[in-house]
């Protein structure tokens, strides 16, 4: 129910984010950004594993990660 968005033009491909992700879903993509860095990404199929813990964003030196969380629906909401 959570996800991250990597602002690719800010990412420097340092991959510090990948070292702190508890579910190990952040990888280096094959894409280069304008500054020539291979940016970090979470493959689409893995995104659902994201816990929204914000660890990746906390260690990112370039403020390239935004974290979104969707509150779990309580029983009986529907």
């Amino acid at each position, binding site marked *: *129910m959570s996800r991250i968005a990597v602002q690719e*033009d*800010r990412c*420097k*491909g*340092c*991959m*510090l984010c990948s*070292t*702190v992700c508890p579910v190990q879903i952040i990888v280096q993509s094959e894409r280069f950004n304008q*500054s020539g*860095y291979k940016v970090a990404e979470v493959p689409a199929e893995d995104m659902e594993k994201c816990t*929204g813990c*914000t*660890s990746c*964003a*906390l*260690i*990112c*030196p*370039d*403020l390239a*990660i*935004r*974290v*979104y*969380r*969707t*509150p779990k*629906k309580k029983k009986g909401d529907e």
Partner: protein
Amino acid sequence: MSEMNEKLVFDRPKAVIDRPTHYCPGCHHGVAHRLVGELLEELGVFEDTILVSSIGCSVFLYNYLNVDAVEAPHGRAPAVATGVKAARKDNFVFAYQGDGDLASIGMAEILHAANRGEKISVVFVNNTVYGMTGGQMAPTTLIGQRTTTCPSGRCLEHEGAPIRMTEIIAGLGGTAFAARGSLDNVKNIRQAKKYMRKAFECQTQNKGFGFVELLSACPTNWKMTPVQANERIQTEMIPYFPLGVYKDTDEGGAC
């Protein structure tokens, strides 16, 4: 359905300007900047802040923080901050310095500002090298560490031992809070922010001089990948520069 309830739980603090930085990949100055920005906002002092930037890779901090700023000569930021605070008692005044800047050329200024108990805050980024000038030996360079001016490794006999600044600052009368944190993992980053908050509060609560050392990586001059450099903090730096609170006048002493 769920997307509609989605909440942004981590975003850039308003005090940090939305622009790319000049730092190398994996440089911890960026993390330290973000923590500073978050705290200025959280403590409600952001619009009253005057930053004193120092000479080193972080001189351009003034381009990244949305606050008034003055550039100090190499090592003199604590003296400049003393002058700023003398002129502007009601503003929040902080200096941000590297290890070459603070622990070498600026040793006199930092010690005396702390000892006078200036109501200023100092963020000290220790990356064990002179980053900006190309990785020369710093007063904090570890024994055996190779730099461009100690190519076969720092030698205790010739160059002396790396200086532990937080311990020294903690021993001075005017210091209200002194702690050493690290920026290498999530737990340490969270803890470092708590230390920084306390150091900043020494000023907002008029208690005295607040000091935080942040162990940081300089992958470029350590000639390591960012991930390796990050690991070096755990394996080499923390054993020599132990983390923790060294003085907290609230708690009645050191840890």
